[in-house]
């Protein structure tokens, strides 16, 4: 199934855990350090330096781009480490999370309550996934190096629906 970001509520509602999809469009990388800052901004009532409302966040920190390439190897990191922040960010409007591994019951609860989606990529397949990236620009937290937020344009990124909007999960 080929899907285009941003994913609408109608599209998300039709997806079921276990569905294999190919995602095209804009996604944002953000992992541990960026999440901590996004969360702190949310808690303090300030605005994060990029608008993740309705967007897809990719839990990833790429390798440096070698000469002649747009980006280095880039694949999903363990999503569970973002569980401390995810429910509040979903409540604040984050729609789609892309990572690897299991999520906490609180994340599943937030996904069902606010109509979110958790997609997984195959961990450790980062050289292959880098080929899906058509552009990469740092848009926030540049000082974090690999953990900075990057706006990526991806084409046909292969993913599997891990937790759907009704709370159905491939891990149960």
């Amino acid at each position, binding site marked *: 199934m080929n899907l285009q970001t941003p994913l609408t509520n109608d599209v998300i509602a039709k997806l079921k855990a*276990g569905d*294999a999809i190919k995602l095209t469009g804009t996604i944002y990388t953000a992992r541990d*350090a960026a999440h901590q800052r996004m969360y702190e901004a949310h808690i303090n009532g300030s605005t994060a330096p990029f608008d993740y409302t309705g967007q897809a966040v990719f839990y*990833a*920190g*790429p*390798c*440096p*781009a*070698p000469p002649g*390439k747009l980006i*280095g*190897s*880039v*694949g999903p*990191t*363990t999503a*569970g480490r973002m569980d401390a922040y995810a429910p509040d960010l979903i409540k604040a409007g984050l729609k789609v999370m892309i990572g*690897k*591994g*299991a999520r906490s019951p609180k994340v599943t609860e937030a996904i069902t309550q606010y109509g979110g989606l958790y997609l*997984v990529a*195959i*961990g*450790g*397949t*980062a*050289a*292959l996934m*880098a*080929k899906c990236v058509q552009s990469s620009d740092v848009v926030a937290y540049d000082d*974090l*190096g*690999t*953990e900075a937020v990057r706006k990526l344009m991806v084409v046909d990124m*292969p993913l*599997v629906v891990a937790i759907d909007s009704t709370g159905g999960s*491939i*891990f149960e």
Partner: protein
Amino acid sequence: MREIPTTKIIQTVAELCIKANIHADPGICSAIKQARCKETSTLAKSAMGVILENMDVAKAENMPICQDTGMVVVFVDMGEDVRVVASCGPAQEVKPKSLINLAINEGVRRGYRDGYLRASVVHDPISRKNTGDNTPAVIHYNIVSGDNIKITVMPKGFGSENKGGIKMLTPSSGLAGVEDFVVDVVRQAGPDPCPPIVVGVGVGGTMEKAALLSKEALAQMFEKNTDPVWAGVESRLLEKINALGIGAAGFKGNTTALGVRVLTYATHIAGLPVAVNIGCHVSRHMSAVI
């Protein structure tokens, strides 16, 4: 006394860092190929196909297999008839400030810079500022006989490292207690450490010795255990772990682990330490003798 210049150590470590991150371990590769043939879950079988394809792409494009190019663990077998001599002075702040320590860290710095590998190390576990060059490495020295230095570089990703565990069992727990703990650690890890995994187990010694053995076990994953009793334990643990049904990428099926390796050491009359170090399907290690 044989003299080895620091430049030789720097160059060797830099090359090992780059090669280990780009070239998949042949043992892992053939284990995945075999497991894929026997896999019953369609999604997991397809995931293993993607994992193998990624290894080919990494090699062809000269890119790291995984973006988590790890914290570098280095095992040094240092011949007692070797003396390291300065050939150029990399000015760095490392502790202890020995020539070999300086040289290994300089090798890591150059390997990660020249190989376009990710800098994933923060200088302090709480304030967490990235050191920018993936140093310092975690280095373990063994003094051995002879006039060579053997260096093994293991870039260790933390998706899998975070999922390890250690327990100070007591003697009455016996082998059953050891096996239960190992299986429990893998069950708790679930789909997070990038299965199919490899499982390094250290049994005996003291707390830190068991942990160290479990790490060393990852670098000897597909070597045959010469002790028939422990070889049997390895096979039984592999069966039990694969019966958990976590599967490649967490997509269920019968391939959760590709191998289990147990290393043991003498221990105290009151103790039975057991440590489990999980390696992902990109588990990396490469050695060179100088």
